[in-house]
């Protein structure tokens, strides 16, 4: 136990924890996107709601899914906590700032704004969980996820915020995905091009896929009516 705490307290150890938790969250994004794309079907929510129901009520899947869900919350909290503490420690490492600091010429935008994108993602997660997760799982009112989604995304401000959040996520993962492999010591000459190729899925295709849901609903304002 002491060894684990010491590992977590070392700068490299904490980054390794961040890389593993970050990659686990990336795996979840795949599953989450595939499920949510069911929202685009014009079937009155039959497929999406069946999927949502499976996730919460199927007796065989119930226990494993709750365990995975708790583990997911745990990894997000550990990842966010590690990110915030690492950032604070890194700020203390340079108490006197430069007058002229040419970091922009030497490092990519996404790598320099990890903390900024992270805070926006955190804000998004809080709003998103409140609107969907808690509403569908524990809310008093409507438990029909398909309807909630079509109603909320009909609001262009709400949709705009979601689309913005996915762009931000894209930036976080543009740097984060390959960075995680570097942190694990796997970004070797041999694998660099493979990692960069797979990274495109995570920083471009997946955020684009998520953004398509509010975009589609915005462009089809009658989809609710059609669905009914």
């Amino acid at each position, binding site marked *: 136990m002491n060894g684990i705490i010491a590992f977590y307290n070392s700068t*490299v150890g904490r*980054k*390794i924890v961040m890389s593993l938790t970050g990659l686990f969250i990336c795996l979840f994004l795949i599953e989450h996107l595939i499920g949510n794309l069911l929202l685009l079907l014009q079937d009155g929510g039959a497929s999406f709601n069946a999927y949502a129901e499976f996730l919460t009520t199927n007796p065989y899947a119930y226990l494993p899914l709750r365990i995975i869900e708790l583990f997911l919350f745990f990894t997000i909290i550990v990842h966010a906590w590690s990110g915030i503490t690492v950032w604070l420690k890194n700020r*203390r*490492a340079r108490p006197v700032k430069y007058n*002229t600091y040419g970091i922009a010429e*030497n490092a*990519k935008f996404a790598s320099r704004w990890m903390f900024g994108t992270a805070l926006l993602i955190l804000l998004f997660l809080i709003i998103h969980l409140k609107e969907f997760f808690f509403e569908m799982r524990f809310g008093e009112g409507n438990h029909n996820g398909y309807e909630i989604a079509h109603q909320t995304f009909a609001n262009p401000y709400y949709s705009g915020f979601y689309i913005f959040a996915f762009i931000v996520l894209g930036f976080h993962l543009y740097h984060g995905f390959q960075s995680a492999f570097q942190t694990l010591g796997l970004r070797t000459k041999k694998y660099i091009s493979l990692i960069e190729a797979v990274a495109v899925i995570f920083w471009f295709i997946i955020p684009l896929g998520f953004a398509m849901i509010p975009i589609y609903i915005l462009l089809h304002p009658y989809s609710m009516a059609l669905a009914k």
Partner: protein
Amino acid sequence: MKVTLKVWRQKDKNDEGRFVDYAADEVSPDMSFLEMLDVVNVGLVKKGEIPIAFDHDCREGICGSCGMMINGRAHGPGRGIATCQLHMRSFQDGDEIVVEPWRAQAFPVIKDLMVDRTALDRIMQAGGYTSAKTGGVPDGNAILVPKPAADEAFDAAACIGCGACVAICPNSSAMLFVAAKVSQLSILPQGQAEREARVENMIAQMDEELFGGCSNTYACEAECPKGISVRHIGRLNHELLRAKL
């Protein structure tokens, strides 16, 4: 050519410090940046003022002592050079050039542009060595080292300990330096005896010196006068995992 210098002046480590402007009016484009500072200093001495203190020794890019931040770039503009290899032709006539010391909690300013880099020495003492048997000199060819390993170790060994990686890093992290040292020794047969202890102890010392952590911005690789690659940081991380597991 003429340039205006905006130089950080600080009497000692307790002094607050401030920027002072100096006009350098007789600069040859063929001068190195340090030679230009020498000329400015001669002028200061003639006026009875205290010359600008800066570290330097070899003036050919191999000792690593001449580091300073020039217009926001470690060792100034250009790639793969130390400040002593930077020439005034890299600037335009009439430029204003901001000159600052390395900034890091672990590198306290001693005076003007000189910083205390002994934190890097203490990291070396924590594990940057190999055990060797005493006695006669072994035959040079007795230990076989495959060519790729020798090349990779040699690339890492090019690090001159200048601290530019720390200076440019947004986190003041010494990871590229530590990685170069750990990588060099972990690849070679001579470095196997302390392989696990080395990486753990050097990283522990790095943390103790209050360097920041690595965010993989790769700015260090871009500014390193010896072009040390960040793949050595990958190897450092891998070595730590290997030692722990």
